[in-house]
């Protein structure tokens, strides 16, 4: 007879002293872990609920401006420094870690229309209602010196926007035409127009650095190549576009913030159909900025809220609002992709977390492992109705909520009418136009 019994030595399973860690032998045999899927589902549900519990995105409000904040700019080399221009011509430089204002400059008379930093971070440019472009040093003047710009260019018309080239000493302004300037000269190197209209914003492409995009109030978005004297092509939409922003990771993709409450992501090579129409705002979208990862962007709207959209989704994943925040005019996503800043009408700059429930500070390895595991679970079960409902739930101010309801009714009515028209006309005579194609009027080359 040969016999062997299970006989475990407790020393192999129990810790020796109280200072040791407990021993946890593992066996991954599925029969020892029954109900794998239901348990994971419950874990995912708990993780989703916790995410909503810990969603506290608001970090700080920077006050000090004496008029609405009209424009924001990031420092290219320093994460903590932010520049802002207000409607009374004042420019302030802020330190985000200390959450205070470092420097105040009375830059212009009237609005500061645009502000941008030089790629090296030593100076910045502002344009204002007083028809001037001014270049300022980033560091303040020495003790006793007066605050004076490095250069001042007097123009003939009002400039409404400015952007600096990402690599060279070139910048572009817009107003009645798009001007390309060399930093060393007082006259534009070239100026480009297409029709007669006021151009509200101009942006350099961060990858293909000689490309520019601008949007004008005659509802078009125009693309320029800096190496040519004439514009490349333009697309005309239903309503006017307020700003555009290029995707920092994909050279040909840009997103336009439109007056018709939507944002449109275009592929530059095929302007006749936007890649995605992003709708959730209930009022005109005033500004848009991409995350440095190029996967998401944030938009600021006249409806007193900001929203975060994934690039490939038509609905927003997040909405931020507070009682005191008024119409949001400008928004920026910080270069470490963790925070969002927005400047609004009521003179404050607000700092938000990009990921509402993220824990700030250093995580221990166990915390990190648990976070990763929960993230994966949420991803795995995101389409389950109960989990989806919890993950999508947001509290909205009454004004936005009721407007959403109202617009839903209006949209439903329009759709119903469309369906009825198709139903009661000759088959094929009424074309079915997709939502994407509906808003593009024409593409001109």
């Amino acid at each position, binding site marked *: *007879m*040969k*016999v*062997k*019994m*299970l*006989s*475990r030595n*407790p020393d*192999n*399973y*129990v810790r020796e002293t109280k200072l040791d860690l*407990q*021993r*946890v*032998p*593992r*066996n*991954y*045999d*599925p*029969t*020892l*872990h*029954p*109900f*794998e*899927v*239901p*348990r994971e*589902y*419950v*874990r995912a549900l*708990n993780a989703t609920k916790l995410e909503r519990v810990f969603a506290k995105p608001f970090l700080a409000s920077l006050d000090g401006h004496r008029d609405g904040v009209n424009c924001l700019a990031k420092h290219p080399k320093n994460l903590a420094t932010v520049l802002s221009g207000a409607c009374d011509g004042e420019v302030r430089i802020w330190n985000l870690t200390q959450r205070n204002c470092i420097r105040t400059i009375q830059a212009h008379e009237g609005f500061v229309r645009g502000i941008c930093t030089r790629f090296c971070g030593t100076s910045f440019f502002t344009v204002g209602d007083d028809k001037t472009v001014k270049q300022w040093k980033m560091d303040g003047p020495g003790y006793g010196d007066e605050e004076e710009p490095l250069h001042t260019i007097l123009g003939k018309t009002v400039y409404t926007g400015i952007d600096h080239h990402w690599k060279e000493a070139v910048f572009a302004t817009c107003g009645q035409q798009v001007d390309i300037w060399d930093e060393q000269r007082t006259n534009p190197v070239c100026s480009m127009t297409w029709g007669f209209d006021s151009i509200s914003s101009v942006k350099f492409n961060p990858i293909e650095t000689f490309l520019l995009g601008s949007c004008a109030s005659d509802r078009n978005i125009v693309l320029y190549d800096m190496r040519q004297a004439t514009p490349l092509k333009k697309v005309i939409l239903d309503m006017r576009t307020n700003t555009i922003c290029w995707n920092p990771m994909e050279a040909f993709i840009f997103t336009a913030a439109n007056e018709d409450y939507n944002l449109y992501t275009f592929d530059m090579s095929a302007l006749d159909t936007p890649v995605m129409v992003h709708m959730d705002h209930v009022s005109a979208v005033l500004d848009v900025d991409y995350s440095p990862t190029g996967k998401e962007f944030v938009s600021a709207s006249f409806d007193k809220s900001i929203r975060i959209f994934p690039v490939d989704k038509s609905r927003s994943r997040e909405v931020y609002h507070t009682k005191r925040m008024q119409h949001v005019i400008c928004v920026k996503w910080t270069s470490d992709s963790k925070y969002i800043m927005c400047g609004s009408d009521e003179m404050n700059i607000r700092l938000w977390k990009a990921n509402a429930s993220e824990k700030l500070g250093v995580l221990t390895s166990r915390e990190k492992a648990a976070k990763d595991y929960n993230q994966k679970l949420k991803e795995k079960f995101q389409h389950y109705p109960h989990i989806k409902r919890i993950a999508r739930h947001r509290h909205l101010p009454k004004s936005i909520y009721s407007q959403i309801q109202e617009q839903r009714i209006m949209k439903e009515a329009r*759709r119903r009418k*469309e*369906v009825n028209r*198709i*139903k009661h006309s000759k088959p094929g005579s009424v074309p*079915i136009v997709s939502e994407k194609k509906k808003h593009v009027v024409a593409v001109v080359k």
Partner: protein
Amino acid sequence: METAPKPGKDVPPKKDKLQTKRKKLRRYWEEEAVPTTAGASPGPPRNKKNRELRPQRPKNAHILKKSRISKKPQVPKKLREWKNPESQRSLSGAQDPFPGPAPVPVEVVQKFCRIDKSRKLPHSKAKTRSRLEVAEAEEEETSIKAARSELLLAEEPGFLEGEDGEDTAKICQADIVEAVDIASAAKHFDLNLRQFGPYRLNYSRTGRHLAFGGRRGHVAALDWVTKKLMCEINVMEAVQDIRFLHSEALLAVAQNRWLHIYDNQGIELHCIRRCDRVTRLEFLPFHFLLATASETGFLTYLDVSVGKIVAALNARAGRLSVMSQNPYNAVIHLGHSNGTVSLWSPAMKEPLAKILCHRGGVRAVAVDSTGTYMATSGLDHQLKIFDLRGTYQPLSTRTLPHGAGHLAFSQRGLLVAGMGDVVNIWAGQGKASPPSLEQPYLTHRLSGPVHGLQFCPFEDVLGVGHTGGITSMLVPGAGEPNFDGLESNPYRSRKQRQEWEVKALLEKVPAELICLDPRALAEVDVISLEQGKKEQIERLGYDPQAKAPFQPKPKQKGRSSTASLVKRKRKVMDEEHRDKVRQSLQQQHHKEAKEAKAKPTGARPSALDRFVR
């Protein structure tokens, strides 16, 4: 397990000759007498049918990339070998006889596979399909990794083998006790409790604690390994059944009238009057549900974490006295006096399934830990093993002289039957195979008729409650040797237990999720998907995913005449039409072949067959 060394194909033939001259290299655990495949043919093995999985040779390049990341130190070396066989030798001139990672046996990998690749989704999008492919590849890799981790398991299962021709059933407990070590021998004991009559017993989930209750009111709980008594009381009422709740701190006792819950000091915490005249108890640990079967014919589910009755189901089959749970899917099996076994879930008012098992009434039911086999015994003295994987057909049947009154499965698939005062144990080939009822593995005679049976989890021990008290038998090979410390740890400290309790409560599975297939939650709900699509088409007035009709592109240089456009359009249309016809023909053939198969083959074709539809 095949562990023959497999030198890569890239080994040049010259070196092979050298190798054959030298003594063949051998892993230390290989026996010398066994000629391995590589030993028989010194050249590189050419057969493609080796039953081993190597992560270097996946199906597509995508996985290759991943496995490269995971096996950083090994694969670059391998890749170098590919180009230059000379570099295989190390500085000292020694050659690695086992290049690459160790092979993994297919059977072990199969055990960890969770995705059924044979099941395909109906017309899914290309994006979805590619995502599924990625998931499948990932799953395969993780199962290989999990299979590799089996190497780290510390304990081996027990066994009992007779000398050549010796019948293991003839080996008595005294012999086993004499042969095994002292620690194991101490696990065999008898509690002589003649006064309080037949005992029911229950081990806690970790296998560390034992609770038993006698017909005449004696209830006790003890740590049976150290023999430390936790509590001993007399409830002054007949005890029908006894069960530990999720941990050893709580104890449910089905008494003559009501269900009572005691703590491990013997203090009565609750008296649940809504569960009256309970005959059998079952605890579903992951759902925190206590299922009670009563004399009044009700199956009641009590949520012990919140103290609410989740469902009270009327089985409409008279007195319920046979109950067991399926540990794989938490379905309750009830045996009835008309010979059927019904399967219940708290989410349904009706049974999920009814199986006619015996001619007489059902006396006992047990389900094994993988949820594959169900053993039943009935008044017709038969013991049957059923397959629970959809068919519900008996796999094997045996007529016993007295019929079994109690049945239980062990973690490794041993089946025990209590027949009068005799206990018979049958064993199968392994964990996944049903026990063969030909020859018993062990038998034992007790001092009184059996009243309760349970294998102790994670130990080679069988607890038997009978009229004479409690007997703890040694059954080598019954228990799972390697426990998981985070699931149920027999050696856990108080702190660990508390932590586990909080975690377990947090991930309490809702009672509505109990169904026959516990993985059903992870599968695509095709029916509601198609329903949703239909509703969308109705709402929009057109199908947004419909393929637009082919519109030929206008061509340059005069080739775009109306006639040619129409011709091209017609060409595509015809092709599509032909495809459709081909498909429908194929389907028809398929159907016919199926029907031909389904027809009874035994009878001769008759002239009247033409009227059969």
